[in-house]
């Protein structure tokens, strides 16, 4: 439902660009919104902390240290939903 939301698209593209450029170092790569990031081995523990700091600076949303795991979010879509919920 929220995939069609323009705000959601903006968050998804910003997150995707950050992950492919800064974490994966493959700017031409594309990530599907439902692609497993943590359980799929794309993002390790160290990069997760960097991602949390990026989200804090870019969207003004705090992701707790206890939330940096695949159980809380594992895909761009899930992460985007968390950001939107906390922004509203």
């Amino acid at each position: 439902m929220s995939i069609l939301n323009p705000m959601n698209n903006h968050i998804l593209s910003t997150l995707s660009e950050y992950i492919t450029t800064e974490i994966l170092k493959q700017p031409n790569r594309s990530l599907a919104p439902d692609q497993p990031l943590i359980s799929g081995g794309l993002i390790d523990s160290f990069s997760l902390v960097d991602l949390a700091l990026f989200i804090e600076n870019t969207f003004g949303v705090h992701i707790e240290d206890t939330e940096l795991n695949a159980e809380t979010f594992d895909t761009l879509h899930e992460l985007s939903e968390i950001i939107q919920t906390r922004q509203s």
Partner: protein
Amino acid sequence: MTLQHILYFTVFTIVISRLSHGLFRHYLLLTGSLFAVFWLQPASSIRNLDFWLPVVSIGMVVIIWILTQPKNPDRKHKLRLEILIISGVVTFIGATRYFGNLCCLTATRPPPIIQIIIVLTILGCFGLLLQHFSQIQKSLLWLAGILIIVIFILLKYDIYALHLSQFLRNWMGQDPSLATTSDLPWLGYSYLAFRLLHTIRDAQGKKLPDYSLGEFTTYALFFPALTAGPIDRSERFIRDYRSPSQETNRNTWIGLQRVLVGLLKKFVLADSLALFALNSQNANQVGAPIWMWIVLYTYSLRLYLDFSGYTDIALGLGAIVGINLPENFNAPYFRTNLTAFWNSWHITLANWFRAYLFNPLTRFLRGGNFKLPVWPIVLVGQITTMTLIGLWHGITWNFFIWGLWHALGLFVHNRWTEWRRRRIINIEIHPWKQKYISFFSWLITFHYVTLGWVWFALPGTDISGRVFSTLFGLGS
């Protein structure tokens, strides 16, 4: 847990799932967990310790609940009943001292009932006193956290454990010269300590949900997960606990299947492999490299089957009563790198250390004004986390080196991944080539982990060194 324990627990969980709902289920699970703390506690050569250690476990849980939960007048009635159940169970188990041969719940005869009543009265007064000091709750939480860690160190460090044993023997009027480091077999303390520490940290961050004393006690001392985990989070456990899955037949069937798988892994496969697995006796006897590799591979397999078998039993028992405990293993020996291995081996312990140590430390070093390059931050984070995971198993040089072994492995994998990502962009790898790469990655990861067990399995660095020499044909 023995087969007898597992059989009784299975019957008990089926009875709960069939016959009880709502509050009655809550009180039954609470009572069952309290009884299990005493029943599972092994005997000690220090008089009555097998009774007092469970009492201290329960006392710690009650104190942490008082310190972490705000006063709620709405649950006053429920609280009274829960306190009555907790003190009632302790008193009843103490009273089995007078039951003669009927006594079966504690490893040895409990202490005289008057001693138990005095201790319970002191604990009650202490609890009431704590409730009145809510203004210094923050300091008390820190103090409680430090105390939990201090007890942990006392139990895990042989020299301190010996001093503590001598002290307790003196106190009980027993000969202190007979004290040994194995006198303090505190059942499940490692897991209980981590559950309580997580509760303290989350309370300090004001992230704890509201729950009753009974709910918290059942979470901290939940009988399936008491001896070998998993280390669940209180808010997740209590969410399941309050709204268990209602598909009773399906839960029972799935739970029983999981228990059976666990029994097969633990009591048939792991216990059989234990006959050939690496230990301090055969480490000194085996001389041929090929046989040393065989006992090491066997140990690697046995350890996984033993530990994951226990987890299957815990998860199965939990599932029968509608509580889905978190998974602890996810095919760790099939992983193709060390980072993936640690995402699938003892998952709840690794997640605990990530949440409360690695992530805050890395966030502090990355987010502050240090302007450090990435590599020292990764190195510091991995060494701190992994050596502490090692020392959690026991404060010895071997566990420390085992932690360091994995820290360095994770660091090298992190740097290697970073290096590869920077240099290898958009290179299409043929599928059969990818298969070879995956196979060799798996081979290296499995052997790195398996060689790491040489530190983990043996009591000293000299004997581990000897095993390494034999493995690589360097022995004299």
